[in-house]
């Protein structure tokens, strides 16, 4: 069956796009994300066993998260994109499905401030624990007095 029938059967609203090198990107709603990922992992049609990467993006008016999946069985790759709100970006965590999501989500939280619900241990991973702010955001200004040596 084609993807449209599959999406209609599971009542999912997914828009399909392509990126510059002709890879598939699916735009998914925030609420449907966990359900879609479960289907991607378990359904015989897809069989995406690997979550390769989790990319957080700061587009000035909103946040986006891009997931990169790969199926070793079918030799196929797939990207999923969700759009999050600008203030307080919150999205479901994929740690229950893919163990590789653990550290990727921690990094996303660390650098961009996107919160992942139901993450076992969401804390900073690359920056020191007492860092203030999320550096990769476009509006990040370093205002920490303890780092004033840096401004000379």
């Amino acid at each position, binding site marked *: 069956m084609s993807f449209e029938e599959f999406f209609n059967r599971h009542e999912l609203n997914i828009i399909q796009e392509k990126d510059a090198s002709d890879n598939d990107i699916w735009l998914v709603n925030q609420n449907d994300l966990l359900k879609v990922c479960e289907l991607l992992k378990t359904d015989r049609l897809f069989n995406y066993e690997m979550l390769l*990467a989790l990319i957080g993006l700061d587009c000035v008016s909103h946040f986006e998260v891009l997931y990169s999946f790969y199926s070793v069985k079918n030799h196929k790759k797939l990207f999923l994109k969700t759009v999050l709100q600008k203030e307080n970006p919150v999205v479901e965590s994929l740690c229950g499905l893919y163990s590789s999501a653990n550290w990727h989500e921690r990094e996303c939280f660390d650098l961009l401030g996107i919160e992942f619900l139901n993450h076992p241990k969401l804390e900073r991973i*690359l920056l*020191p624990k007492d860092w203030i702010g999320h550096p990769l955001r476009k509006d990040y200004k370093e205002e920490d007095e303890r780092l004033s040596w840096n401004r000379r």
Partner: protein
Amino acid sequence: MITEELKINIGPQHPSTHGVLRLVADLDGEYIRDIEAKIGYLHRGMEKLAESRNYHQYLPMVDRIDYLSGFFNSASFCYAVEGLAGIKVPKRAEYLRLITMELNRISSHLLWLGTFLLDLGATSPLFYCLREREEIVKILENLTGQRMMYNYYCFGGVRKDMPDGWLGSVRDFCESFPAKIDDYEKLITENPIFLERTKGVGVISQEMALDFGITGANLRASGVKFDARKNMPYSVYKDFNFDIPIHQEGDCYARYQVRLLEMRESCHLIQKAITRIPGGASEKLKVKRTNCGCNKPECAFCGDETKVFFKKTNPLVLKIPTSEITTFVESSRGLSTCYVRANGTNMPDRVKWRTPSFSATQILPELCKGGLYADIMAILGSLDIVLPEVDR
């Protein structure tokens, strides 16, 4: 007398760990009850730096993300920008990229081998591996002028053509190299102490590897045949017929064997590429070009395929419209992806690196729990983790 658990801190500075990795272990005698990996000591903000530099200024910085396999990072960024901007790369440049990438793979594996055995206690093989690596580094210095951070690829090809006699030196190296790998095998592969320390240690099952996103030789040693050079072909790998070595056991010994086989395969690949490079060796090409002088695009000597770049891109003018792209490259440690998002200016909007050592460091605590303290070094060495890749 009550025995308590001992909380011990391994690193961040340590003679053994391959970079600044900190492991906090709860020891019960020699057994590890719990271990946690803390990273971030080498975080340089590579991704944020990209947002304030234009594409040409960022390109030399890309080599330094993993300095032991600089060509692969450079290649993935170059392919990303070329894909976004629609820049074509001539065939000769692609062949040069392939040869240099495979040479880099061999040199990275040699350093891995030397330091892996040094961690286990054997001090001599390091010097032999470094001797071979010195030859490769000299070859690459002749080509690019640099021993480590090569900065050789540019958008649209490579910066300049090979010097005279370079192809002959690569051929000589490839002829002498398999004998050296045989030497290492004689010294190490059947050594009973080495077998005892690596067989059955740090077993990664197939499901665990796929779940944690492990790629590269670590995945191939667990029985999964996945190599980005075959499954997501880039450059001119489509034209070559080469083997992907896999092993089924998934322990340290299997990873060691897979990497040795990979070194041999890279050597074969380079030898084949040398015979097929369009235009051949540069000294002969120059002579033939002068003799031919036709300047037709299909000519075998002065045509398009024998150039190393079609048109050099101008850093002030290269503005890429809003689009995004992800490129996949098989680096020496695994699958390395580069995501670039352009926004119409001459600076990228977002660059993200997904590096293979990040996933390997994530799986390290799972493998070490329940094992012995002395196994940490064997597992850490066999996973081929390089910290600049993890922290970026």
